[in-house]
């Protein structure tokens, strides 16, 4: 499969990329690792007039200690995030989940900024960012702004980014040692998109469950928070009782990987597993 014709330019900096995006009038797309965009180009689902290659902006490939948070540059490849010691220490759900994306070849190319900007409800890391209450730093021609993860995802393949904005950094909070976490996904083959995925964080106070935040993958048009389950856990429910409420407010899609009803059932099963795992660590 060969993509339709497009123009191509290499960005020399984030500012240059934004300038090129602005000049393209909405028909220009950023190309980072390309592991979502190139398949879409080949299937001709996406037919941008121009691609701006930001894959060489190595100054945006970093993981830094930001005090109360860890800052991850948008051009960080999944493989680099997965093996990063700072994240393993302070926010292991991010490094663990990055290591669950696709397969090694995909992780060598795919980037954090790419997966978050693409807005695919079946991607792993968006739901993790949502559960963490991460902040996304976005650069436009007027400067930077910060978008909370809860406001980033607006629809299937749609985000709050303006056509001439670029995601440059994700800020994930450092987790307390008492916070339990788990990311569990079900898929048909190891490398497939999640049929359903669950990112769970359980906060404890003096050993007792004080609250939880749960992000769901592929249970609607965007990654979703499982608020009913979170509230039940905070109110003292067991993992099984809370997991039974996980479909509240979701609209699971039907496709070849599973029907809507199957996903609803699966979500309850893997939410219970994720909560038990999070409560156990």
């Amino acid at each position, binding site marked *: 499969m060969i993509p339709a*014709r497009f123009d*191509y330019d290499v960005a020399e900096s984030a500012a240059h990329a934004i300038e090129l995006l602005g000049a393209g009038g909405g028909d220009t797309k950023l190309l980072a690792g390309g*592991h979502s965009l*190139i398949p879409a180009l080949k299937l001709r689902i996406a037919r941008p007039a121009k691609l701006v290659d930001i894959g060489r902006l190595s100054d945006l490939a970093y993981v830094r200690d930001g005090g109360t948070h860890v800052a991850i540059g948008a051009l960080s490849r999944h493989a680099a995030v997965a093996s990063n010691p700072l994240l393993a220490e302070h926010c292991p759900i991010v490094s663990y989940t990055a290591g669950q994306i696709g397969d*090694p*070849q995909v992780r*060598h*190319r795919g980037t954090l900024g790419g997966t978050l900007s693409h807005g695919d409800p079946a991607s792993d890391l968006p739901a993790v960012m949502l559960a963490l209450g991460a902040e996304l730093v976005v650069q436009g021609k007027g400067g930077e702004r910060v978008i909370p993860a809860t406001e980033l995802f607006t629809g299937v393949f749609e985000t709050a980014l303006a056509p001439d904005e670029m995601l440059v950094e994700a800020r994930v909070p450092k987790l307390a040692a008492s916070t339990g976490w788990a990311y569990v996904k079900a898929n048909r083959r190891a490398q497939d998109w999640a049929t359903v995925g669950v990112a769970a964080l359980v906060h404890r106070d003096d050993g007792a469950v004080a609250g939880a935040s749960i992000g769901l993958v592929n249970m609607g048009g965007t990654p979703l928070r499982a608020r009913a389950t979170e509230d039940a856990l905070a109110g003292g429910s067991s993992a099984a009782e809370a997991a039974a409420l996980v479909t509240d407010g979701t609209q699971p899609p039907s496709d070849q990987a599973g029907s809507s009803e199957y996903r609803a059932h699966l979500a309850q099963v893997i939410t219970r597993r994720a909560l038990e795992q999070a409560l156990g660590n």
Partner: protein
Amino acid sequence: MRQVALTVNGMRHELELEPRELLVYVLRDRLKLTGTNVGCDTSSCGACTVLVDGESVKSCTVLGVQADGAEITTIEGLAANGSLHPVQQAFHDHHALQCGYCTPGMVMAAVSLIEHGEATSEAAIREGLEGNLCRCTGYHNIVAAVQDAAGAMGRAR
């Protein structure tokens, strides 16, 4: 069209590419390196795996222009001075193939895995080869070959 310089198996090539040309077709059609196979063409099967700057990638999902300036290794670049690479030798010794279609990609994925120090156990090898499909279901011998090669390469260092 765009001027691109690729170093493939140690040889520098200057090419004029259309931006939409995929790396796998640049290797196969322009450089006549047909050892790299196209399987699924959707970055699922791994048959097109090559090394770009030492890392395994699926060349059906990389544009040739993205690889400008990169060092690329294909299956043709592994053997040196008439001797098979340890991974190739181990595939030969263990009969780690049936039809052979997945083999070039499987070998390149294994080389990347071993060189990154990630082929540390049978389980790690199985996990590390999750991006490569063998439809003859020959995984047993493939995993044995990679384990053997990892040992041989470890001893060689």
